[in-house]
């Protein structure tokens, strides 16, 4: 499949050719095969899974579990290590609640100032509850993690190191393998938030040697409301479940409960079957284009965007602006609030995000109240960037 031709695979983009969608960091567009897979579940085998003895239930179970195997293989994991959740936020909360239940005063959780609120607030709040200490690795002025500070902060008191693989605000890619090694050196577990990276990088959890990896389906061409938690089986086996209910048990008496085996121990209640199947179709879609082609296309486009946009007067970029910045360009125009830029771009049918990007500690560290964020996907083109460039000049004209 030619990567240049694939805008037509996305019904919303195909139906609105004037639309320049540059907010895939918030949510990616959904291709037709994903919509078809979800529809097909409801149209042909809409039954609950794991318990029906009848044929449509067996078919639904088969599709759901085949999807689990497919996604596990996509990130280099085993099927029992792949837990379906509602998304990265839910996965991180599951980890925070389950892992922090054994932490006490004197223990430390190390996160970073670069995190999305979903990988910051849970630890901060649970620290108040359990009395452990949360520490945050700082950032450099060009929006990278301060690795010297990371090495200094991660100490024998550290029990958990949790960090984003790729910043949702600036597109900075963090040295995940290195950070995981720092965590393991002191016996801590390493959690990697892959919400942004999963659509843009070849993820191999074994090679990265993370203990946990979380991501959302809707940022990788899948539907909303479905996501995953990968965890090393040895760790998951010893962890307390986060949610209790049906499907996650093997035996219940009036006084005690035996929990189900992995991965079901962490999947209480009827899961989001259709969306899981849709996410499986999204993985098929990515593989049909080829993740290497996606990466190449987006790397070229990121470089092109930086080169074109730097010609705009009074523009300030945030981020490394080199190979470690990927698929996201964050900037401000002097004297114009990011929100006003976004509103005016909208009138030109250009969709961008403006504000703090759910990363207020990061914005504070960078000394800004917010930025305009352009986030790219494989369906974006150089023409989209050219339109953005021209529209930004118009914005400046209005505010002159």
């Amino acid at each position, binding site marked *: 499949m030619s990567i240049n031709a694939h805008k037509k695979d996305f019904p919303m983009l195909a139906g609105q050719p004037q639309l320049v969608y540059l907010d895939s960091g918030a949510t990616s567009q959904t291709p037709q095969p994903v919509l078809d897979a979800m529809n097909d579940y409801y149209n042909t085998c809409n039954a609950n899974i794991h318990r029906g003895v009848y044929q449509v239930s067996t078919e639904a179970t088969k599709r759901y579990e085949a999807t689990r195997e497919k996604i596990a293989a996509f990130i280099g994991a085993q099927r029992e290590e792949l837990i379906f959740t509602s998304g990265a936020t839910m996965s991180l909360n599951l980890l925070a609640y389950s892992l922090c239940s054994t932490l006490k005063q004197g223990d430390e959780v190390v996160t970073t100032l670069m995190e999305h609120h979903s990988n910051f607030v849970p630890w901060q709040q649970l620290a108040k509850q359990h009395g452990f200490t949360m520490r945050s690795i700082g950032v450099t002025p060009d929006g990278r993690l301060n690795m010297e500070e990371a090495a200094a902060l991660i100490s024998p008191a550290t029990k958990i190191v949790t960090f984003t693989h790729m910043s949702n605000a600036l597109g900075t890619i963090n040295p995940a393998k290195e950070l995981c090694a720092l965590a393991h050196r002191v016996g801590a577990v390493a959690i990697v938030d892959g919400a942004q990276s999963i659509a843009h990088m070849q993820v191999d959890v074994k090679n990265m040697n993370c203990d946990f990896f979380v991501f959302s389906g809707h940022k990788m061409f899948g539907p909303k409301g479905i996501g995953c938690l990968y965890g090393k089986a040895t760790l998951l086996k010893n962890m307390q479940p986060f949610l209790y209910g049906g499907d996650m048990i093997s035996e219940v008496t009036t006084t005690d409960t035996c929990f189900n085996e992995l991965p079901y121990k962490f999947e209480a209640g009827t899961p989001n079957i259709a969306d899981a199947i849709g996410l499986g179709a999204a993985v098929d879609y990515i593989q049909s284009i080829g993740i290497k082609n996606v990466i190449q296309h987006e790397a070229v486009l990121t470089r092109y965007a930086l080169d074109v946009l730097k010609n705009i007067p009074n523009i300030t970029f945030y981020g490394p602006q080199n190979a470690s910045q990927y698929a996201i360009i964050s900037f401000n125009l002097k004297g114009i609030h*990011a*929100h006003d830029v976004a*509103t*005016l771009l909208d009138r*030109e049918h250009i969709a961008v995000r*403006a*504000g*703090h990007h759910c990363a207020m500690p990061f914005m504070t560290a960078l000394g800004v109240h917010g930025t305009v964020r352009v986030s790219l996907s494989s369906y974006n083109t150089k023409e989209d960037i050219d339109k953005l460039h021209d529209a930004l000049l118009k914005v400046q004209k*209005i*505010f002159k």
Partner: protein
Amino acid sequence: MDEELYREHILDHYKNPRNKGALSDYSFKHKEYNPLCGDVLELFLRVDEKNRVAETGFEGHGCAISQASASLLTEYIKGKTIDELKTLTTQDILDMLGVPINDARMKCAMLSLKTLEQGLYAFSQ
């Protein structure tokens, strides 16, 4: 482009905000946030012995709409009584702005009114 929204008087109030700055002598102050975009507004009011607004000031940061709205409101309320302030409505703010505000920007436009209302509520307790 939406020159409608960013009319000259809006941009004028954004670039040259009236009553910008904190008051050192105030009857009450109140701070509100717009969590969606990170706008912040702190409003200062000094009320005279006849319960009329004698002086106003505001601090904060935000988009042109939220800042123009604060600038316009702090102008408008001078000389009004506390009771008059309590009758202010969303429509009053929209009339002051005089530009079409869509749903996405309504929170920005109303941050000033929200701050005043919450401040008045605390002041009246």
